[in-house]
């Protein structure tokens, strides 16, 4: 106790008396049983989630393939445009703006 003036040693003696015997083995077995149950449950939930994710990927695969094809086409078109004169001008202007903005911020 940090405040010895308030501390009552007679009352503390009451608390320090031998408490009723608490059998350890049954309690430990019971907690470990619950621990093993929780672990099995967590493993099952993890497995179920992985199966669900796999099934979702299989079911959604036609849309995923179509989406990937569209994305591929869109990227190819944008790279073609960037490689041309208008795209190169646009990139140059963008780079200049970024450099000016960085200089303004450092000042």
């Amino acid at each position, binding site marked *: 106790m940090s405040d010895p003036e308030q501390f009552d040693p007679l009352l503390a003696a*009451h608390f320090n008396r*031998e408490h009723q015997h608490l059998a350890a083995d049954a309690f430990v077995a019971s907690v*470990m049983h619950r621990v093993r149950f*929780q672990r099995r449950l967590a493993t099952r939930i993890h497995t179920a989630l992985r199966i669900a994710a796999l099934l979702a990927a299989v079911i959604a695969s036609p849309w995923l393939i179509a989406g990937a094809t569209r994305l591929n086409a869109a990227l190819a078109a944008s790279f073609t445009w960037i490689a041309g004169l208008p795209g190169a001008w646009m990139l140059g202007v963008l780079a200049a703006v970024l450099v000016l903005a960085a200089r303004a911020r450092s000042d």
Partner: protein
Amino acid sequence: MQSRLAVAELKQAPDPLVIALACTGDDSAFAEVLRRRQGRVRKFMYHLCRNTAQGDDLAQQVFLTAWQSLRQLRSAVAFDGWLKRIMVTTWLAEVRRGKPSTTSDLDPADIAVHHDATSARMDLDAALSTLPPDMRLCVVLAYSDGLSHPEIVALTDMPLGTVKSHISRGAARLRQILADYGDKP
């Protein structure tokens, strides 16, 4: 997980080693930690709820929470303080749910038959049950666990003045009730 030490070796091993092994997911090491700490946790919970079955149930919750969060423990040396915080949090959650028992499962007839250490313990348990839950918690932490006021503040998040007042008024009330029983420690 398979234990790295045999059960006999675990029983001889020092606390920090057993706790460190438990933190790696070693079930046998956790069972050994459980065996070493169960008496303290159950006694603490029993003082607070005065019912062996409910006290054991709360103590089981404490150890389950500890098992689930063991990986968050940074140092084996900090285990006891960390466990104490789980004990207090579990009790406060029980109080918030409005479920703490005030009914003892001990036989009151024992008191009339003999006035020995058992009945004195029952006197203390009965006297403790008359205190409000927050006051009971502060008194048990101070007198049963020997914690200082700042340590109780850190564990319970109550203001220092409230903790001091709870301990002072709670101890006075316990003294009065125990004197009425005619019990001398």
